[in-house]
């Protein structure tokens, strides 16, 4: 990735989108819209001093919304370019409030609230479309209750939970536990505030609130307006502290997720959604189960699937090794439903097709292996480029020219073409590069000949 930022032959236009395409193979004219970052790319050093003091906290999309970032941010720590960006939807200054804290913190004078989006015109001979895919939205399958049961997550969310640079620092903390911990933090802030309020009364009257309140309850101070206020504030304090105590007790018992269930083919091989096999998900579930076991040797995983498709060199061995060394159990059967049991534990209801029995089993965390869905912007870009999309929603190619779109000079590779893993994406990318070069040389020869 670093090489892309450094290579003299690559002009990197990040935070940009194609607006218009004219011309034909050998001579396309492309209009690109460079969105305003409100940070000057040539000045920003990526130091991150700006975000330290920014008061605006927003959910972090890079971490699948499981973590937080500031309104001025870098997409992720090692991102290229490292130029920071102000999120115009949340920044105070850009929404008419007084702030500008980031600008004060920036020694490079890179922040520019008046920056406007820019239009760039390019003249290119060929175009490669590598716009990738979207993770299937599992809420479309109501019986899995994603979004309703906190401890049902997607595989990409689980990648972020496993990551040392992710929102949990690589600990497999369950979302339900994290929600309670966040609630505790909120309540502690409130308790501190109300503690200060009642402390003032205690000082004034030289008495602890508890003792005072016991007598107040007996009606000792009826008609005393001042003490009535004290009692009211003390009641409010109790209404914060008591649930806080209960939550803290509960949180004391929290442990990392140890019993994991992976559900395969969520949206894939499902005629309601995508009939195709997404190819990489069996492998990434095995991978995630192996890594989870590396995090905690007592971790066990059950992978529920119609079959495990470990197609590729070394993949079957990987699967077997996972079973032998990483406490992975492969269960043949499609999951019918996920419900919630005690302690926020998801319960998986499935048919074990080997034993021909319908069973249910409780887990700490359920991970959904979601389908490789066409990128949500596919139609829009297809219209701009005047290329066709296929029945599945990916860019259309033919069996004999698998990298050529329906318009000469425009090629496609990676998951924009269909589901595939990283090695396949890389192989296609190199092939698409070769096809693009052929377009350049062919159009040059044509020009020379005419």
């Amino acid at each position, binding site marked *: *990735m670093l*090489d*892309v930022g450094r*290579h*003299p*032959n690559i*002009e*990197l*236009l*990040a*935070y*940009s*989108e*194609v607006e218009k395409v004219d011309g034909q193979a*050998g001579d*396309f004219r492309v209009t*690109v819209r460079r969105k305003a970052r409100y940070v000057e790319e040539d000045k920003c050093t990526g130091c991150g001093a700006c975000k330290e003091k920014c008061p605006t906290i927003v959910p972090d999309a*890079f971490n*699948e919304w499981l973590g937080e970032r500031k309104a001025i*941010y*870098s*997409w*992720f720590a*090692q*991102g*290229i*370019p490292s*130029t920071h960006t102000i999120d115009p939807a949340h920044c105070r200054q850009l929404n008419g409030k007084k702030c500008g804290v980031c600008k004060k913190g920036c020694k490079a004078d890179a922040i520019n609230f008046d920056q406007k989006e820019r239009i760039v015109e*390019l*003249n*290119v*001979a060929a*175009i*490669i*479309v*590598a*716009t*990738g895919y979207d993770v299937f939205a599992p809420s479309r399958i109501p019986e899995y209750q994603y979004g309703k049961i906190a401890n049902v997550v997607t595989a*990409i969310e689980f*990648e*972020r939970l*496993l*990551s040392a640079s992710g929102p949990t620092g*690589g600990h497999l903390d369950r979302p339900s536990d994290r929600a309670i911990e966040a609630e505790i933090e909120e309540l502690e802030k409130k308790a501190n505030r109300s503690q200060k309020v009642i402390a003032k009364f205690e000082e004034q009257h030289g008495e602890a609130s508890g003792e005072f309140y016991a007598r107040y309850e007996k009606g000792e101070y009826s008609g005393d307006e001042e003490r009535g206020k004290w009692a009211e504030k003390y009641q409010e304090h109790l209404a914060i502290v008591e649930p806080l105590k209960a939550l803290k007790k509960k949180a004391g018992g929290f442990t990392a997720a140890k019993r994991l269930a992976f559900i395969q083919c969520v949206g894939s091989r499902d005629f309601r959604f995508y009939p195709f096999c997404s190819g990489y998900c069996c*492998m990434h579930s*095995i*991978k995630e189960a192996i*890594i989870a076991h590396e995090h905690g040797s007592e971790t066990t995983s059950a992978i529920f699937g119609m079959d495990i498709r470990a197609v590729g060199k*070394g*993949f079957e061995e990987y699967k077997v090794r996972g079973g032998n060394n990483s406490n992975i159990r492969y269960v043949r059967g499609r999951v019918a439903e996920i419900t919630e049991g005690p302690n926020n534990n998801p319960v998986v209801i499935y048919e074990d097709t080997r034993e021909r029995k319908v069973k249910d089993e409780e887990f700490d965390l359920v991970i959904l292996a979601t389908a490789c869905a066409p990128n949500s912007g596919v139609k829009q870009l297809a219209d701009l480029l005047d290329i066709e999309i296929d029945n599945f929603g990916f860019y259309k190619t033919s069996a004999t020219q698998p990298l050529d779109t329906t318009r000469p000079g425009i090629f496609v590779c*990676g*998951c924009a073409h269909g589901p595939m893993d*990283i090695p396949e*994406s*890389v192989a296609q*990318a190199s092939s698409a*590069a070769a096809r*693009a*070069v052929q377009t*350049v040389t062919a159009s040059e020869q044509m020009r020379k000949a005419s």
Partner: protein
Amino acid sequence: MSRDILVIGGGIAGIQSSLDLAEMGFKVHLIERLPSIGGKMAQLDKTFPTNDCAI
């Protein structure tokens, strides 16, 4: 008239196409809609089948 090539999307596929072309001596314009390149691969903890770090 130009020999330049446009790559749309800066995930692993777009990055690889760009690097190959750049190494062959072609000028590449790489467009990414997000603030940084990397795509989904940047979000992965490690990758099968080698369990190498993704970034």
